């Protein structure tokens, strides 16, 4: 690799990770087919192992390129920003499909359900108890991640650490409460279209909270290893954008599914 580039772009080196990522994804989804039809989880587990090993090493390489090799110039980070925005846009549309299914069923409940929402026989959650607490937790975590971001831009290492730590802690707390709600739920995913749309929407949101919490935890570890500077910390910004997105999805979920639809 030349250290005398006359351009600001990053010409990436050959990498095995796109290939192993494709192999991992194919193995995972084939494993899901095998799991659901043959009740054998082994191929699914193998696919997840391949995928996890790939994403760990791929992002490790990206961190090395950006932090140690100085390859993430200003022009490169613009591309990374567009990439992250487009990814979050695709996630937004992913959730639009679940909200669409929910509104399709809830705005005009079928006569077979008793033409009412929630359907006869479903006891929904009280939105002003644990769901309201979960709303406060996610909104608070939006504040703490913003605190961390501002601290980072002001070169305050310890405040950034505290802000990120609180954010990760709140994400874990949210997940614990949501798991408790799932265990206590009087309905299941198999209980009419109400249960299906509820668990699909809140389940995928819960998975995204786990992913976002992991992302922020990785940023916390990188921060403790002094990977970020006040001007060069896009990995952290991507995690913060993603976390704010997860937060906003929950607000829509809370208002439409827990409150209005409950």
């Amino acid at each position: 690799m030349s250290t005398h580039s006359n351009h600001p772009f990053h010409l990436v080196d050959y990498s095995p990770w796109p290939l192993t990522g494709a192999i991992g994804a194919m193995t995972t989804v084939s494993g899901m087919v095998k799991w659901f039809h043959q009740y054998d989880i082994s191929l699914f587990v193998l696919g997840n192992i391949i995928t996890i090993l790939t994403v760990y090493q791929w992002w490790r390489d990206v961190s090395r390129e950006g932090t140690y090799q100085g390859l993430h110039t200003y022009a490169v980070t613009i591309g990374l920003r567009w990439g992250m925005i487009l990814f979050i846009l695709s996630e937004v549309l992913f959730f639009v499909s679940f909200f669409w299914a929910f509104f399709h069923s809830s705005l005009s409940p079928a006569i077979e359900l008793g033409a009412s929402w929630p359907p006869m026989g479903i006891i929904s959650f009280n939105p002003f108890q644990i769901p309201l607490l979960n709303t406060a937790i996610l909104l608070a975590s939006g504040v703490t991640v913003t605190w961390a971001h501002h601290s980072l831009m002001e070169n305050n290492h310890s405040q950034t650490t505290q802000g990120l730590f609180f954010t990760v802690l709140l994400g874990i707390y949210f997940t614990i409460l949501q798991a408790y709600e799932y265990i206590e739920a009087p309905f299941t995913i198999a209980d009419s279209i109400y249960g299906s749309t509820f668990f699909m929407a809140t389940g995928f949101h819960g998975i995204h909270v786990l992913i976002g919490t992991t992302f922020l935890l990785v940023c916390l570890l990188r921060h403790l290893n002094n990977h970020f500077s006040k001007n060069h910390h896009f990995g952290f910004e991507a995690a913060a954008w993603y976390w704010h997105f997860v937060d906003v999805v929950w607000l829509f979920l809370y208002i439409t599914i827990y409150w209005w639809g409950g």
Partner: protein
Amino acid sequence: MPIFDIRLMGNMPANTAGLWKRVTFLLALPAIVLCAANAFTGHKHVEREPFAKYEYLRRRTKRFPWGDGNRSLFHNAEVNALPEGYEDEVAEED
């Protein structure tokens, strides 16, 4: 100046970390404490719904791909009935 300049995303006024720290400790965390107190003290035990055999509830078109195939991932025997009824009630009838 473009209407939307991606280079400016993420750039925010400096010297505002203190503001967000104060919002965290004076507004956000107290709100969590209040909501937690509300959630865990105001909780009333809800009697479970008597079993009613609606055809749209407890649907089993295929078995679940785990366990005995008849229970959802977060099955709670006390409040989630099986297609033929609550487990303890069915056990009493047997």
